[in-house]
């Protein structure tokens, strides 16, 4: 069980190794990467801001909840912050379990919860040079 909020590149192979155990028949890896297009605009990268100490604590809580709920200690999650270029990983979750249904559910739980709970914010950088904080776009939308 491990949770990390980091400025360094994510290594998915290391995560897979970390959750490996001879009793685990099923291993799930989810990775999220920066897409080249969002809402029709060409994106070059995303700058992730974070309330780092709270984000690290919250990600630890989420991983612990998944471990408890789905019955496996083999859950790890890493969220990258700072500038992440198109194609690079921004987040990765690995979960392993004797059975595949629980491995799927544990990985899914972690990614859904962190999307809603981690104090992390995206500033999208576009090919035309503009950049937009996504939390402010929410403000526009709800007006």
């Amino acid at each position, binding site marked *: 069980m491990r949770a990390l909020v980091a400025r360094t590149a994510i290594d998915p192979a290391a995560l897979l190794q970390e959750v490996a155990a001879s009793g685990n028949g099923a291993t799930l890896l989810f990775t999220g990467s920066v897409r080249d297009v969002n809402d029709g605009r060409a994106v070059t990268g995303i700058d992730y801001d*974070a*309330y780092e100490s709270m984000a690290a604590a919250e990600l630890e809580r989420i991983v612990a909840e998944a471990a408890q709920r789905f019955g496996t200690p083999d859950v790890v999650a890493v969220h990258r912050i700072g500038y992440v270029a198109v194609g690079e990983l921004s987040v990765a979750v690995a979960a392993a379990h004797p059975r595949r249904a629980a491995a799927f559910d544990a990985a899914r739980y972690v990614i859904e919860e*962190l999307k809603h709970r981690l*104090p*992390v914010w*995206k500033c999208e950088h576009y090919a035309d040079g503009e950049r937009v904080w*996504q939390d*402010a776009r929410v*403000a526009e939308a709800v007006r």
Partner: protein
Amino acid sequence: MTIRVLLFASWSEALGSRVVEVEVGSGATAADVLAAVESRAGGASLARPAVAVNQRIVDPATPVDERDEIALIPPVAGG
């Protein structure tokens, strides 16, 4: 009392800083702190944030203290 408030994302950008200090009366709440920071933001188009006290989101009516770690938490979107 003087409250230090941590800022992130569009709030940090709008106020040009990662942290601001605001003056509030004794017995002030999280809502009072937010109102004090908002008055600094002028007309910037900012999503209304939640307030975290000591790294937990709190009800706006929660009283705050100068020793608390206080932060504005705009709508989050990790991943």
